[in-house]
């Protein structure tokens, strides 16, 4: 079947199997490998992308369900060569180690900050609680998101 999706501002159309998962569509069909596949059961959140401006777990969304809709991935966080403050926050606060969960964490963090520009620690923890990180113990992810909240214009 034909699937047409706008990803990070670019229009794509591909003929795919109806059962193809969005995560595989992004990674294998479009070559956007920044979003990761980690568990199949919507538990780990390595695959979190935005579908029409809401975070979804792309391992449990069919590519067909994204037809005609807008997807944003980690590759679309940077704008005009300017890092998103969330990206910079993860660097400043050591919010990543192996980097595998990082794209999904950052997509959720950006979504949170768009709705709540000044989240406290509990709100940040709640927002990322559907995602797993095996390296950081979450502390520095929380700090990274706080850094982004405190630097809405990015590094100065």
């Amino acid at each position, binding site marked *: 079947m034909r699937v047409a999706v706008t990803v990070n501002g670019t229009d794509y159309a591909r003929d795919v199997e109806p059962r193809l998962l969005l995560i595989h569509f992004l990674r294998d069909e479009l070559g956007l490998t*920044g979003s990761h596949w980690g568990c199949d059961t919507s538990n780990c959140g390595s695959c979190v992308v935005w579908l029409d401006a809401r975070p979804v777990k792309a391992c449990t969304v069919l590519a067909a369900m994204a037809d005609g809709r807008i997807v944003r991935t980690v590759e679309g966080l940077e704008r005009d060569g300017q890092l998103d403050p969330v990206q910079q926050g993860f660097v400043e606060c050591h919010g990543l180690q*192996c*980097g595998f969960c990082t794209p999904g964490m950052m997509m959720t963090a950006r979504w949170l900050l768009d709705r709540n520009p000044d989240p406290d620690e509990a709100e940040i923890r709640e927002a990322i609680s559907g*995602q797993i990180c095996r390296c950081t113990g979450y502390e520095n992810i929380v700090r990274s998101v706080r850094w982004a909240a405190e630097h809405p214009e990015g590094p100065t």
Partner: protein
Amino acid sequence: MTGGFGSRPRKEDQRFIRGRGTYVDDVKLPGMLHGAVLRSPHPHARILSVDTVAAEAHPKVRAVLTGESLAKRDLAWMPTLSGDKQAVLATDKVRFQGQEVAFVVADDHYAARDALELIDVEYEPLPPVIDARQALDPGAPLVRDDHPGRADNHIFDWEAGDAERTDAVFRAAEVTVSQDMLYPRVHPAPLETCGIVADFEQISGKLTVWATSQAPHAHRTLYSMVTGLPEHKIRVVSPDIGGGFGSKVPIYPGYLCAIVGTMITGRPVKWMEDRSENLMSTAFARDFHMRGELAADRDGKIRAVRVQVLADHGAFNGAAQPSKYPAGFFGVFTGSYDLEAAHCQVTGVYTNKAPGGVAYSCSFRITEAVYLVERMVDVLAFELDMDPAELRMRNLLRPEQFPYTCQTGWVYDSGDYPRTLRMAMDLAGYEKLRAEQRAERGNGHLIGIGLSFFTEAVGAGPRKDMDILGIGMADGVELRVHPTGTAVLRISVQTQGQGHETTFAQIVAEELGLSPDDVEVVHGDTDQTPFGMGTYGSRSTPVSGAATAIVARKVRERARVVAAAMLEVDPDDLEWERGRWFVRGDPDSGRTIAEIAWAAHSNLELPDGVEGHLDATCVYNPPNLTYPFGAYICVVDVDPGTGKVDVRRFVAVDDCGVRINPMIVEGQVHGGLADGIGMALMENIAFDAEGNCLGGSFMDYLLPTALECPSWELGATVTPSPHHPIGAKGVGESATVGSPPAVVNAVIDALRPYGVRHADMPLTPAQVWRAIQGRPFRTDLAIS
């Protein structure tokens, strides 16, 4: 900027935050095919037939492998890291649920999975061995009838310490305590599962594999030994790795299937396991059934420890540790205490479970050892009605006792244990917490305060004692300073998130006075780097970090000779200050490393016997292990109605010697603490009576999220390792080793009003509630 050590952002972050990392599953080669593994639904069954006709007829299928077809290539079995053998694809029997039976190579991943459904395997189910405690019973089903002459499920017996002396101390002791405890089967569960892309070039005969490997050089050697391909025709690339934690040390059957797949089809073959395959078949850890005993004086002086262990290794002995240590470094079960005698006896058995166990951030079974001794100290405190902090303080090794040879022969290099424990108690406000606990008990509120004090032995290791499959555990390194003064460092160890590209550059920078930004670290490619044993057991900094410091010092000495030629003085007249050699008494005369590098490559006339250029190599064979240690305090609130545990606070004071990049050190501690909460409260791979794995997805195998973890409170003491060139000790596994007993001790402490002395991990709400009722259950078997 010059100078090396200190917190600084990581170089590798720049690609990860942009989604531009390259993990194995991101590797896409022209013409690449995809593999999938058919797995056994039975824990124990004879294979009567495997019919692949329908699968082979699938229009997108390029090859189907079975045990029979691998046997024709002599590849149906492979050696394990423990000198056992493991089935690549089953030929005679399946021995655990999830075991590899067939491998399909197809045009795409979905088609490969479809074709698995077309393979018809006829099984004759056999009774399984599921309860490790019954594995040695007379009449127990025989797991490994492939071993000629084997009549039971016994793998090994191993002991350490002095049994007679220990027994004598126990007989004379005023107080003895004994406790059975299980360290359950858990899984490292890195977010990136295991996988490979194998590409065999038929003209040149060169095999290139991109693999999730913590030890690319060791894997190259193993692939050569197993496949018969000459080692120089094998290149292992370990690109970005999405966490390893020990699970990416061994070679798994899927890797070999992909290699055979590329050799048969002439096209690259990718195989990535899915999460259920990961949890059910690759790399479990722990599964130690332990009985601990302490002998002590009535005033709390601990005199001896005695331990018996039954180790469940599953269907194949795939444990990863140096050859002479079948129970890993469990021998440090004497802990951080000054004892008169110690003895342990470990028996390994086969069961119908996934093979293992790997070293899951445990420094080769030190996790189990620390849990044992730290739980036992709390059991003794319970019996003596003593404060567990006071009991530890009374028994800790004193600073003047280092270097200290423990009762099982390990030589602890350095430490000031009481200072570290005191710092943790001060950070936690220990005495105040105890007062709060007493006050709240009156209100029915259960607060628990748990301590652990751990000592690790990491950085394997001295090659005379430590090897894996005969390969000594020394690491090579190469450093080259380019003519314009920037440098490239080539290391054998492989980061899985530890930040080697940053910290190893910092070591060179510290030694040569360069900016870390001017040092490129090359790793993860066997064609580009010198031989070494890889990253696990917290060995990167203790071994390769030492090699890096030494190779930089070699370069510095070479630079001295060149600088002397430049300045027309004797090398002995030169002094070093960061980044410069200068004539003694004339600081203005100095030459920087960059200036010297240019001269070393120029037409400057060098003394006879001095080669040009500015580079060096080194192979570092550690004289001893390093012994990081720490004091942890966990505070929990337990709901007596539901058994739910909330970790309110966690204080961790780590001493890992000199810290190269404190930010990275603290990050690693954070991650290990979360691991500890997971293992203590949530993670478990149990089995039902039929041998079904009950931890086969993240729906069942529970990992801590941001909500289960508190905001960590860290402290540090620094006791440099006396034999490491920069005094570093390694830290990657400290928190994973040290935190589980602190959490468990806290929960049991909270349950004191109910008279609970012990309950096995994981302390789920059900387990805690059962403990309150006085009947905690076994966590290795399904709840009955």
